[in-house]
């Protein structure tokens, strides 16, 4: 259990401390865009996503708009978000044992 927790915190720390290289960033963008593209081949999910988005935000972004936002991400911006979201002192834990 402790080994699991330690390795998890180590990965979070790495995302907080180390800026992604251009190569890593491009590879991760390519993977996520590909995953979204594959998932978009499900019309039922597309209909439900559209409904939810229109219900709450009165708009529905195309996958292309999301791809553009992903392409615009920078290593500096990601580091900032990782430090905001993955700070160890701000994380809760729940364990069933």
């Amino acid at each position, binding site marked *: 259990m402790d080994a699991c927790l330690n390795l*998890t915190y180590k*990965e979070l720390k790495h995302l907080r401390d180390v800026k992604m290289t251009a190569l890593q960033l491009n590879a991760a963008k390519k993977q996520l865009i590909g*995953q979204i593209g594959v998932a978009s081949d499900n019309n039922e999910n597309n209909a439900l996503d559209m409904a939810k988005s229109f219900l709450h935000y009165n708009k529905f972004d195309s996958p292309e708009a999301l791809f553009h936002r992903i392409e615009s991400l920078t290593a500096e911006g990601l580091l900032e978000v990782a430090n905001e979201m993955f700070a160890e002192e701000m994380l809760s834990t729940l364990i069933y044992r």
Partner: protein
Amino acid sequence: MHYNQHTLPNGLRIIHAPSLSKVAYCGYAVDAGTRDEQENEQGMAHFVEHLSFKGTEKRKAWHIINRMENVGGDLNAYTNKEETVIYSAFLTEHFPRAVELLTDIVFHSTFPQREIDKEVEVVIDEIKLYDDTPSELIFDDFEDLIFKNHPLGRNILGKPEQLRNFTTADVLNFTSRYYHPTNMVFFVLGNLDFKKVVRLVEKSMHDVLFSEYKTIRNSPPAYIPEHLVVPKDTNQAHVMIGGRGYDAYSEKRTALYFLNNILGGPGMNSKLNVSLRERKALVYSVESNLTSYTDTGVFCIYLEPILKMWMLV
């Protein structure tokens, strides 16, 4: 994606995405979920979803379930913290049938007490099943920890003792608060003429009048991290790590979504899967998730550690 939209005089928003498929999907999405229940209504949003198929002013439950099934279609629904969706999948030619049925279900359900009494037991069985599935239960319990003392932390299914007290009047009280045309959208994805879509939806709603209503929500209080160990009589340990995330409107949400995918997304090459499972064989599974609500969010990592034999001695 190209889509068409229109608002009816009664305030209902209609959204249509054209598709070339022979199969179409349509339904109502209502801006009402678990977080919109009052203290004594826990489980009501989900319960309404169940009861929607149990009778309207002109149909018995049997007629409802057969209406789309008879033409090879199906009826489906789900509830979450912020919305309830009731929808159908069918061959495009049966769109008029689907619209008429869904409008009847959403606006003219009667929620008979005899059906409530039967359905309560079905939901309580669902709760028991859920309690026996710690790998799912822990996600709800974690949200309870992150949104402590706020309706967002509540379990969608509710509590058996409250469910058993629900009456027709209670259910109607809930739907009369939230089931207004201005508080929902009608969505369609299919190879349909949009003018025909609008005409048929409007026709089906001829007796549903305009009533101004928009769900208003209170945001959860400030977040204080907590660490909790819960003894469970299971062979398997389950672990959640995480905290508050960005709301769905946040400009930083895409960055967190991206980081989440790198860390514990569905790919087997995610950082956590490689580190904990592939390299060290410490877990059966590991994943990270991001849920964004309209005013807040949750980021979490779920681990199923492998307990070595010596730990069990």
